């Protein structure tokens, strides 16, 4: 659940940028500093992206929000719908939480986060109700349940409440994308195994033009019901996590680095 990115404030960087002096030398130095800061910032964003999409993926690693993850991924369309909704809520809530982070008392931050998230979820729900009623219906209860999705409140607590708006937004985007990707991947697996199709019912989400998106991957005589039922989702999820760990181990095995075995020791003495 915890995030390994150390909270860093770029506000003071910006401040230092404003305090430019006129001397050529200093401006040169400033430019250098700027470039360095930019590079650092870039690296930081890159790290955020890696964390969200792979290393700290909310679905695969943090195992957050499993309830909707397993419940609605029977088809790609449903998965996409919920993934987008979650993504939207995550970005918006992260931005808001980050923006008001200096004014939120520590003791009541959780209720406040929940209120913010609930507000955005309601917005998204209303939007979906208005523009893609079909998917709104097929997602059912899981749409309002986004409020209780731990991934969202987890990011608000672990990252957004400690970092500036821009980064929080990016973090929300990446985490949301990571979550949505897993949803879609699971949806693909389950839909192919269960029905042999892909994007079945995409028109519910994307409009009538999307009817043509539906692909018949393979012709099944009978549905493989297990894949569509929740147990199948659990099993598929287990395999996805195993695959992710296997890839990680493989990468780790290739980068075995040897650190110097230096022990910094302290003399256990008190008279010094």
């Amino acid at each position: 659940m915890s995030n390994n990115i150390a909270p860093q404030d770029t506000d003071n960087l910006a401040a230092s940028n404003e305090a430019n002096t006129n001397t050529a030398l200093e401006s040169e130095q400033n430019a250098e500093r700027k470039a360095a800061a930019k590079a650092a910032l870039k690296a930081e964003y890159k790290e955020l992206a890696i964390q969200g999409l792979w290393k700290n993926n909310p679905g695969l690693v943090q195992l957050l929000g499993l309830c909707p993850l397993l419940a609605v991924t029977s088809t790609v369309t449903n998965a996409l719908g919920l993934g987008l909704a979650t993504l939207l809520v995550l970005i918006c809530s992260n931005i808001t939480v980050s923006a008001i982070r200096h004014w939120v008392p520590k003791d009541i931050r959780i209720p406040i986060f929940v209120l913010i998230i609930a507000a955005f979820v309601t917005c998204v729900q209303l939007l979906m109700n208005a523009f893609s009623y079909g998917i709104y219906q097929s997602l059912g209860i899981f749409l309002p349940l986004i409020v209780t999705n731990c991934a969202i409140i987890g990011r608000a607590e672990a990252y957004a409440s400690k970092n500036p708006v821009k980064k929080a937004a990016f973090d929300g985007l990446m985490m949301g994308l990571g979550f949505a990707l897993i949803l879609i991947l699971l949806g693909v697996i389950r839909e192919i195994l269960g029905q042999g199709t892909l994007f079945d019912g995409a028109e519910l989400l994307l409009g009538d033009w999307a009817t043509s998106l539906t692909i018949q991957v393979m012709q099944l005589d009978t549905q493989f019901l297990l894949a569509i039922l929740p147990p199948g989702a659990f099993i598929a999820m287990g395999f996805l996590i195993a695959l992710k760990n296997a890839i990680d181990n493989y990468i780790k095995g290739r980068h075995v680095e040897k650190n110097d075995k230096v022990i910094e020791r302290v003399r256990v003495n008190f008279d010094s």
Partner: protein
Amino acid sequence: MAFWIASSPHNHNHTKTPNLMRLVILATLPGVLAQWYFFGWGNLIHIGLAMATALICEFIVLSLRKKPIAHQLLDGSGLLTALLLGICLPALAPWWISVVGTAFAIIIVKQLYGGLGHNPFNPAMAGYVMLLVSFPIQMTLWQPPLSLLAIDLTFSNTLTTIFTGFTVEGYSVEQVRSSIDGITMATPLDTLKTNISQGFTVIESIKNPVFGDNFSLGWEWINAGFLLGGLFLLAKKAIAWQTPISFLLSIFVCSFIGYSFAPDANPSTMFHWFTGATMLGAFFILTDPVTGATSNKGRLVVGALAGLLIYLIRTFGGYPDGVAFAILLCNMSAPLIDQYTRPRTYGHEKGE
């Protein structure tokens, strides 16, 4: 002279797990033969298919896990799983049913949990339940006993039906399953359930030819075969007596209560004992040591619980035969039961 160093005891009674497995496989023989006699070649073909699949799957997983293949492949546990699954399948189910079921049982239920000795669920039953849940149509392709069939089910006919869905002469599975009167038939349990839900009494419904002269044509003899095999295992002390005895007693008590309250809607104990997979479950599946309770008291509790669950599922549940579900539920509760039925150690007060 050189010396062997070993830890005591230096002697052993020379029993081995593979031998135990082989003994259990051997004990299924009467039941399997009865099944062949009454229902034809279908189950034997499925057993063969399942065993081949089991060996292949075990080989693949064991080599992936870098385990001693020769040692574990032939320990008989995988074959036993395949055998039990093959016995349970409907005789005319398509070939891929047994392949998918066995692969699921071996790879996911057994090996992914760590292989022999580590699986919390009985692989055969888990595979069966998976099939039942996933492929309800194929898994109800039960065939009435040969004597009631209009079409002669020879070996070749059965083989082609399993692989293509049609007999050599071109009859479809549905046609094969029809009786002489042209009515599609189901198992006695299924028939009874349907009839009772339609308002027939037990007496009325057992007039259906699938019930035969006694409780259920063919099935009673298959169950008797498994009972025989089970008694053989008991005599050999290969299985603990507590589980099957308490299981059968529990069914007896439940059905007796049901029968005495509403004889019209509840069949007799003998019907419960000798239809479906009761005896197979009692002596071959519930007694699987890996997934059952280990203490004697625990075994009694597990058996009783399984009996109760089977009765409840058969009487009130959505499936006609609840053996597989009941056993999986018991597997789940076995560790908890073990926890609370630990024996008192010598020299300790109770509960110390």
